[in-house]
C-alpha cells in the first residue's frame, strides 16, 4: 500500500493544475465575456460586429480544435505558448463566448426606467454602465456564471491532449502503472465534484452579498 500514497500524490498534483486552469481560465473568460457582451451593445458598428464574430466563432467550433490551434498551430505563426497558457487561452475564450451572451442578456434586462433616470441625471454612457446598469445586471449574471465556471472546470480535462498533467492525465498515468482503474477514477470523480461544489457555494455567497438591499420585485 505504500506505493499508493505516491500515486495519490500524483493525482493531487494534477488537481492543482486543474484548479489553476479553472481559476485563470475563468478570469480570462470573465474579461472576454464583459468585453464581447458589452461590445455587442456598443454604439459602434465595428465593435458590435467584432464581438459577434468572436462569440459565434468560439461557440460554433469545438473546444478540442481550439485547444489544438492554441498549442500546435499558433507556433507556426510565431506564437509559442506553454501547455498551461494554451489551455487557459482556449478554455477562457471558449467559455467567455458563452458568458458574453449572459452579460448582454443581463444588461438588457435592467429596466428601461433605470436607463431613463441616468439620462435625466445627465450621466455619460460610461458612467451609466459603471454606476447604474452593471451593478444591477451583475446579480442576474451570477447564477449562469456559476454554470459557466463549472462547465469550464469540466472542460479542463481536454488539456491532457496537449500533454498537460492535469487531474485526468494523472489518473490515466496511475491507471497505466497500477492496472487499477477504480481507485484513480473514483478519486478524480470525487475531486471534480468537490471543486464544482466549491464553485457553487462561492457563487451563492457572492449572489447573496450583491443582492442585499435590492428590491425583491425585480
Amino acid at each position, binding site marked *: 500500500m505504500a506505493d499508493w500514497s505516491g500515486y495519490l500524490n500524483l493525482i493531487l498534483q494534477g488537481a492543482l493544475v486543474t484548479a489553476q486552469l479553472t481559476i485563470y481560465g475563468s478570469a480570462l473568460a470573465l474579461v472576454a465575456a464583459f468585453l464581447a457582451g458589452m461590445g455587442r451593445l456598443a454604439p459602434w458598428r465595428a465593435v458590435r460586429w467584432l464581438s459577434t464574430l468572436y462569440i459565434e466563432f468560439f461557440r460554433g467550433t469545438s473546444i478540442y480544435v481550439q485547444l489544438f490551434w492554441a498549442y500546435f498551430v499558433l507556433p507556426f505563426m510565431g506564437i509559442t505558448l506553454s501547455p498551461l497558457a494554451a489551455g487557459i487561452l482556449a478554455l477562457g475564450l471558449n467559455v467567455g463566448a458563452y458568458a458574453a451572451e449572459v452579460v448582454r442578456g443581463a444588461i438588457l434586462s435592467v429596466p428601461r*426606467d*433605470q436607463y*431613463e*433616470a441616468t*439620462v*435625466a*441625471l*445627465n*450621466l*455619460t*454612457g460610461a*458612467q451609466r454602465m459603471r*454606476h*447604474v446598469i452593471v*451593478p*444591477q445586471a451583475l446579480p442576474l449574471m451570477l447564477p449562469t456564471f456559476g454554470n459557466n465556471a463549472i462547465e469550464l472546470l469540466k472542460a479542463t480535462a481536454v488539456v491532457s491532449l496537449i500533454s498537460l498533467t492535469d487531474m485526468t492525465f494523472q489518473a490515466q498515468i496511475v491507471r497505466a502503472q497500477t492496472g487499477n482503474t477504480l481507485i484513480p477514477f473514483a478519486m478524480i470523480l470525487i475531486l471534480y465534484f468537490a471543486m464544482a461544489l466549491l464553485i457553487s457555494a462561492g457563487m451563492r455567497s457572492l449572489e447573496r452579498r450583491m443582492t442585499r*438591499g*435590492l*428590491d*425583491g420585485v*425585480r
Partner: protein
Amino acid sequence: MTAPIIRIKELDKSFGTLRVLDGLSFDVMPGEKLALIGPSGSGKTTILRILMTLETISGGHIEVCGEQLYHMQRNGREVPADAAHLHHMRRHIGMVFQHFNLFPHKSVLDNITLAPMLTKAEPRARAEARAMELLEMVGLADKARAMPSQLSGGQKQRVAIARALALQPRIMLFDEVTSALDPELVEEVLLVMKRLAAETDMTMLLVTHEMGFAHEFADRVLFFDKGRIVEQGPPDQIFRNPEHERTQTFLRKIIAAGHRV
C-alpha cells in the same frame, strides 16, 4: 422684456404612423409654473420626454435657455445635435418620473449624490451636505441611509424630487408624479411640490391628473388634445370658465371620476 426659457416651434412627433404632436408651438417664461392637462394619449407626457431628450423629434425646433436643443451649428449649417450637445443641454433640465426610477442598489443618500459627484465633480462631503439639506426639505433626513426598497411610494417620490434638485436645474419636469401612488400618499408629495414652487424661481412643467393641484400650483394651464393645444390660460379661466367644448367635456369627466377641481 425677458426672453422665454423654452421655445417650442412647430414641433412634430410621430411614433410610426401615429402622430402624437402636431405642429405644436408654445413658449415658457423663466420661473413660470405650467400645468399640462388633457386626456391620455394627448401628447402631454411626450412633450416632457422630448424636453428631457428621452425621445427624438420628428420635426420642428426647441430652444432651451437660448440654445437649440435638438440642433446645432456646424460650418454655418444647422445639423442634428450630437451626443455631446445633448449632454451640454441636459444640465439645464431635471425630471421626476411617474415611477420614481430610484436606483435600487444605492442608498437614499447615494441616489442623490451620484449625479453631482459624477457630472459636476463635486467632492463627496459637499455633495452629501447638499443632499442632506434637500432631504431635510422633503422631510426625509432620517432616511438618508435607507435603501429605496424600505421606503413607501410617497417617500420614494420625495427622494426622487431631491435627486433631481441636486443638480440645480433651471427647468424641472414633473411627469404624473402622483399617479403611481396610493391615495393617502399623494398629499405628502404635493406638499413638497407646493413648497418648491413657492420657494424657488425654477421653471416647472407639470403633467398631472390632479386638477385641484394644477389649479393651485400653476400660473398657466395648457389643455391638450390629439397633440395640439386646445386652450390655454390662467387656471381660474381654464377650470372655472373653459371656452372650448372639448375642455368642458374633459373636466366634466374628470369631476365625475371623483377628482377635485
